[in-house]
């Protein structure tokens, strides 16, 4: 009914959690910032990933998606205590993830409203 929206919502939620963990550990020595590979996570969560169609025998299938969903962030500048969190970058990513979460929510809301209007016939 909702297509891949619930899975997308779940993965956006996980991404928000990962980014929150990064920001929470901005002052923890040795902590390595992480990020969710959205496409791999969405596929693992049961959503449809967009792949190129294979219409000819010579066509190669789309990129295979491994089980690894968490990836390390490459730091822009090293720090003495081995921490790779850049709070500003994490905050920007968090804002981005929050916006995407809300966008997915809007789409779901729209579907839900259409269904309700179909049921009630208003």
């Amino acid at each position, binding site marked *: 009914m909702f297509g891949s929206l619930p899975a997308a*919502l*779940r993965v*956006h*939620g*996980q991404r*928000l*959690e*990962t980014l*929150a*963990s990064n*920001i*929470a*550990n*901005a*002052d*923890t*020595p040795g*902590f390595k910032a992480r990020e969710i590979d959205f496409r791999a996570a969405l596929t693992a969560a049961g959503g449809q990933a967009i792949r190129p169609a294979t219409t000819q025998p010579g066509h190669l299938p789309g990129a295979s998606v491994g089980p690894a969903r968490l990836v390390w962030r490459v730091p822009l500048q090293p720090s003495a205590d081995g921490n790779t969190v850049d*709070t500003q970058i994490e*905050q920007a990513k*968090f*804002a981005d993830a*929050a916006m995407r*979460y*809300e966008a997915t*929510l809007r789409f*779901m*809301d729209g579907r*839900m*409203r259409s269904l*309700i209007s179909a049921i009630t016939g208003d």
Partner: protein
Amino acid sequence: MSSFRIFNIAGSALSAQNVRLNTVASNLANADTVASTPDAAYRARQPVFSTQAVPGGGVGVAVAKVTQSAEQPQRQYQPGHPLADAEGYVYAANVNVVEQMANMISASQSYRSNLELMNTAKDLMLRTLNVGR
């Protein structure tokens, strides 16, 4: 976001930063204290953070330990001081006030960014609750 894990993660960070602010406060409060022996002198305290797994996923933060500065207390010649030793010296706390102020600013900024996180998460949760209304 299926559960309230962000609140646990950001909450653990808030409490850890709070411990850090508390140690800064006690360091600054004791910056001018003196003692009659180097061992009795106040030493600057500093919390060490470590990661803490949140049940179900995500990584919070916890205070692993509170360390004391290894720097030697300052020896000051104050023969008139009631705490002075036989040679007339007192030992002042090894607190670097400038360092503590910088630490305080850093801690309060971290506190604030985690608070923002919680506010955003709260808004998103409320919107999720209102889907279809």
